[in-house]
């Protein structure tokens, strides 16, 4: 017989001897990577100062939810911060919100804040993330044109949606379509405009792209594919095709650009992101990078890749923390993301920046399938709908291929 009696108490963090550790740690960026790095450092018993600098005025938050349930109105506001405000002080993490770093001085090992203050670091983590790309067309900076990255962006969108009736979403990838679903849930009319033939086709292929389009159309979304927005006016947009759409709200989801400014000025090696090795070390001593900003060597493809997904960012933040403590842990997690479209979730493991063949098992139209993406005879990624266990198995298979 097996008996389970009572829960074990939570593990008490060890206290690491300060001797061989960085005298202080500074983290720039209050997103997924920065936040979890700070937590992991304390979990591992790091005893010295941790400063977490965030340009955002809001607490580090659950960013995936900002385009999903929170935007749809089905999540509670208190689900959004990753930790309570007290968490940081309780764990001796000096969290400074609305704080911009103006420069990094790698030789002096200091960072300079916008008010001129200098902070020293023994180790520095750059987790500055990415910023939404904006349209460069007439009307792009009108007040009813939104991007979605921060909690403030989501709140502004929610406020506009309350007064709005007709939204044009620019872009048919993750942000665009999740916003479309959320705003349909709030009762707005939604038109999606994108240049590609099918939503998400480049990442997920034609079959899942068609599935996604069908789901959205069933929920009343209208698609204008093979088109771009040429101009935005106060109550309408004009497409490249000449067609005009009513719009009292425009949401732009056309991608993000890695925020590499600080790293560039500091002379770190940059390649559409901050280049790091397998231990997430940058080209400068004692400086690490993690999250949307980091381009690391992917063992599966032998390429350096940069991935803009939440779970990858968190796992990198954890590894960076371990490595700032002197451990040499390789970051070799298999990238994973999920994308939510009303009641249907797509799970994706791996990273197929390019693919020349895909294999479909099951029926995408029935929301029950696995699609694998191949390049040069190698399987690089698997997307699943309604097959969560298969997604876990596919992830494990990739790990085993790497010999983990």
């Amino acid at each position, binding site marked *: 017989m097996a008996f389970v009696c009572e829960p074990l108490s939570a*593990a008490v963090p060890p206290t690491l001897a300060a001797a061989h550790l960085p005298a202080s740690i500074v983290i720039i960026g209050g997103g997924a990577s920065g936040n979890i790095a700070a937590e992991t450092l304390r979990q591992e018993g790091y005893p010295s100062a941790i400063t977490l600098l965030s340009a955002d005025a809001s607490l580090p938050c659950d960013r995936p939810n900002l385009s999903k349930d929170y935007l749809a109105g089905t999540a509670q506001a208190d689900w959004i911060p990753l930790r309570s405000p007290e968490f940081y002080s309780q764990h001796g993490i000096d969290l400074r919100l609305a704080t911009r770093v103006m420069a990094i001085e790698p030789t002096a090992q200091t960072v300079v804040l916008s008010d001129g203050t200098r902070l020293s670091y023994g180790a520095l983590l750059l987790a500055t993330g990415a910023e939404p790309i904006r349209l460069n067309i007439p009307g792009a900076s009108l007040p009813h044109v939104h991007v979605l990255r921060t909690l403030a962006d989501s709140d502004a969108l929610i406020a506009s949606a309350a007064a709005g009736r007709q939204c044009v979403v620019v872009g048919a990838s993750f942000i665009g379509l999740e916003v479309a679903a959320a705003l349909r849930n709030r009762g707005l009319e939604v038109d999606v405009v994108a240049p590609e033939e099918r939503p998400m086709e480049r990442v997920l292929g034609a079959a899942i792209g068609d599935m996604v389009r069908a789901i959205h159309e069933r929920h009343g979304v209208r698609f204008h594919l093979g088109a771009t927005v040429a101009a935005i006016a106060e109550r309408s947009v004009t497409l490249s095709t000449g067609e005009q759409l009513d719009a009292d709200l425009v949401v732009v989801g056309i991608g993000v650009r890695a925020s590499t400014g600080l790293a560039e000025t500091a002379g770190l090696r940059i390649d559409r992101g901050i280049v790091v090795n397998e231990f997430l070390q940058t080209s400068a001593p004692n400086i690490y990078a993690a999250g949307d900003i980091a381009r690391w060597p992917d063992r599966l493809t032998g390429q350096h890749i940069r991935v803009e997904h939440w779970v990858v960012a968190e796992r990198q933040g954890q590894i960076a923390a371990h490595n700032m403590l002197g451990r040499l842990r390789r970051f070799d997690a298999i990238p994973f993301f999920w994308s939510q479209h009303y009641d249907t979730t797509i799970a994706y493991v791996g990273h197929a920046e390019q693919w020349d063949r895909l294999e479909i098992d099951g029926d995408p139209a029935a929301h029950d399938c696995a699609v694998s993406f191949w390049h040069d005879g190698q399987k690089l990624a698997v997307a699943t709908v309604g097959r969560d266990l298969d*997604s876990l198995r596919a992830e494990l298979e990739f790990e085993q291929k790497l010999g983990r």
Partner: protein
Amino acid sequence: MSEESSAGGPDFRQGVLLDRLADGQMLLGHVAGEPALLVRRVEGLFAVGAACTHYGGPLVEGLLVDDTVRCPWHHACFSLRTGAALRPRR
């Protein structure tokens, strides 16, 4: 979004016959009302909370890998020995 596994299944404090549980099998039950997972592996028996600490996903529907369990919703990974989240979240 924070759905929890229902507190159904056996009360593990009352004991579970070992032959109900093969290696690599997860049994969903509860301990004093808290949903729990009983897992048998070659290395031994483990019991952890049944709900993922991320959004409450059902770990019993996940994947056992050595001495860890992975959540089917967003692939969080928990130690069967300590319950610690080895990979995000919390």
